[in-house]
């Protein structure tokens, strides 16, 4: 292992540039460790985003050597090419500054896709028992562990080509709620995901599945939404 890593970090806004830093190489070093080293020891003005450092919060995703990754769980030894690292803010989002991408559009689309639970009961009703073995619950559980990191969104060709496209994480979230028997908002949700630039715009390239750090398969969720909304449309329950 070389003693020093050659690290290029994106600095500035969308009109910024890469700046090179030399960072000591260490064992079991993550990309987030490298970025943190630069801010603590080389340039305190470096901006980036992180919180939990253990792969739960979804804050620290960045482009690492051209590929979107969760930096806190990405070991340098796995991704450095010849001792070199290039780190940039997530793609398909505006740059705020340096390595911090603006995720307002990402979460705005979350709302557009009706990614919010719509309760069908009140706190005065008894708690509804949910059988984890039903096909619906299994479909929801298979997609539920999303940490909102934006890696799939940054890796999606359709997001890149169609700025209105809802996005894989957002549609994946909608699919979990479509399969939640306690949810009362599915009529509006199916309408929302079936409009132009909704689930039917997905090309099934499966980059979201390939790049998702927690191993989810948003493409499968989107295919589920396509089937469900198509059936509703053919039955006349859905007017586009």
């Amino acid at each position, binding site marked *: 292992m070389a003693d020093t890593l050659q690290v290029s970090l994106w600095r500035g806004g969308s009109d910024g540039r890469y700046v090179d830093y030399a960072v000591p190489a260490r064992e079991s070093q993550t990309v987030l460790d490298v970025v943190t080293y630069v801010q603590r020891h080389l340039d305190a003005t470096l901006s980036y985003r992180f919180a939990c450092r253990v792969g739960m919060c979804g804050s620290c995703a960045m482009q690492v050597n051209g590929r979107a990754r969760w930096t806190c769980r990405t070991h340098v030894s796995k991704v450095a090419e010849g001792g070199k690292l290039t780190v940039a803010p997530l793609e398909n989002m505006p740059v705020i500054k340096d390595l911090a991408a603006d995720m307002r559009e990402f979460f705005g689309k979350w709302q557009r896709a009706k990614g919010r639970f719509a309760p069908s009961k009140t706190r005065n009703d008894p708690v509804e028992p949910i059988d984890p073995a039903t096909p619906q619950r299994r479909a929801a559980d298979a997609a539920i562990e999303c940490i909102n990191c934006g890696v799939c969104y940054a890796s999606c060709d359709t997001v890149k080509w169609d700025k209105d496209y809802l996005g894989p994480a957002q549609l994946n979230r909608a699919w979990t709620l479509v399969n939640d028997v306690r949810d009362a908002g599915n009529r509006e949700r199916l309408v929302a995901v079936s409009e*132009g630039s909704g689930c*039917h715009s997905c090309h099934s390239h499966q980059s979201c599945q390939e790049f998702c750090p927690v191993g989810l398969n948003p493409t499968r969720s989107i295919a589920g939404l396509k089937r469900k909304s198509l059936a509703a449309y053919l039955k006349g329950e859905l007017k*586009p």
Partner: protein
Amino acid sequence: MNVALYAWQRATAALMAPLVLVHLVVIFYAMGAGLSAAQMLARTRGSIAWGLFYGVFVAAVSVHAAIGVRTILIEWTPLPRRAIDGFAILFGLVLAVLGLRAVAAVVLP
């Protein structure tokens, strides 16, 4: 693409799959048998079956291709949606007119 366009594009694709196969078989047969233009026309003129076959084919192609071109224009050009919708409809109509003219030319007696 919304759910209605998706339904039309998938339905026309399913319809075209067997039609394309028959179309290819017909081409291979006609070429293999060395049919002249006059011999082909003798088989197609006045044929309701060939008229229906290629009439449905042209209709399916026109709908399918127009929706596909619309998607390509949305993803690859900065044109506004209204202009793209208008162009896609026009493109579908041009395909339908050209295709149906060709069908009429070989089927009408």
